[in-house]
């Protein structure tokens, strides 16, 4: 993978934070757009690391899944 894990992680977190006023949940595609030269699977590996570190969390409606920053937005009580 040409992608540097730490740099990529930083870029993802910065992206989520920059949008935090308007958006708390993101599609997987939003992240592949950040790394147009990388394979989707490599971007997924970085997201998995962030999930395992507890930085990102999955949000699911049951049919669709999105990613969000842990603790961002209204969620734990299922208000979304």
């Amino acid at each position: 993978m040409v992608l540097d894990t730490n740099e990529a992680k930083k870029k993802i977190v910065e992206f989520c934070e920059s949008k935090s006023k308007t958006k708390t949940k993101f599609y997987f595609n939003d992240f592949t757009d950040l790394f147009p030269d990388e394979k989707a699977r490599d971007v997924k590996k970085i997201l998995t690391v962030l999930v395992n570190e507890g930085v990102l969390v999955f949000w699911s409606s049951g049919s669709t899944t999105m990613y969000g920053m842990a603790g961002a937005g209204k969620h734990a009580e299922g208000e979304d």
Partner: protein
Amino acid sequence: MAKHKTPLLDQLESGPWPSFVSDIKQECASRAKNAKGVDYQVPADCPDDLLGVLEMSYVDGETHWKHGGIVGVFGYGGGVIGRYCDQPEMFPGVAHFHTVRVNQPSGLYYTTEFLRQICDLWELRGSGLTNMHGSTGDIVLLGTTTPQLEEIFFDLTHKMNTDLGGSGSNLRTPSCCLGQSRCEFACIDTQQLCHDLTNTYQDELHRPAFPYKFKFKVDGCPNGCVAAIARSDFSIIGTWRDEIRIDQKAVAAYVGGEIKPNAGAHAGRDWGKFDIQKEVVDRCPTGCMKFEGGKLEINNKECVRCMHCINAMPRALRIGNDRGASILCGAKAPILDGPQMSSLLVPFIKAEEPYDEIKEIVENLWDWWMEEGKNRERLGETMKRLSFQKLLEVTNQKADARHVREPRHNPYIFWKEEEVKGGWQRDIADYRKKHQK
């Protein structure tokens, strides 16, 4: 004494069919009695509140469930679906009522011990209500609270040797027919293939990164007992490419009435004497059979493996010996674009361990769909939007007459320069030798 009055639901019990309302009431009574002394970890009366909220929805004509949220087990993006009631004070037992999907065993074979374990686990940590099985195939455990999830997951994986199923934008739990374990029509080992795909693609199952859901279904033959062609993005259907094996003696026995057609399945009514011409030969969709002088013949080149004749006379006609699978892509339910059946992509492929050829197609397909698919777009919709021709290209398949679903459906096939002999350049002098100006 019921906790909530439910006259509308009670009415549902009056029909001739088994009723889910009676089932839930049975569970209410059993939990109230608690004969086994279970230390219920979620409100013991949650099935009562479930009936209560359902009755209210019937009265109001609208749902009282909110769905979605950040519930799940650590590191998994699927398998748990958050459900919350929007009247939690009235129905505290179902304030949180999450669904857990459990990966069903291939072909749905259980030991009674396993079923007892599942039920005991769900009495203790859930509502006790299950749905066997969800439409994707999973064992569906209905109704639990967030703090129970990790405990449930631990028991499923450590004590019961199973795992959560799929949900959300990921690979859904693959499913298959019971195949060679019981069925003589099975052209491939569906259970082995399904199990292998499930294990190979664990990351895709548990960590969602697709535009939308993706389903594998494996049918052992075109009878399609798990309806792969209608209900999966990647449908694997067993088939053969040589000849249907004919036992002429058994054909004669069917004709003579010694063997019942369809293995006696329609014996409940008198349909008269079996007429091979009318019931088999004339019903062959391609007209490739003939019965003359007591001999049945099949022009196998024209046979489309519809299974009709084999189903009618299973002791006389058997699947061929050179077996494998056809792969079709893109089935989906009505959301967005309307329902769609899968389209044939690979007419014949060998389906033998380690299934590398099949997996190569799967992975090429995913690379393309993950790259090009829009959010919430099923593979079938991406195919429609970007053309079947593109699908052939990304999966390295050659166009084949069998890809044509019906003649003249879409006459616009665009050749690429490298596909045309001599490219776009031609020797005009040579052309003029045969064609005047």
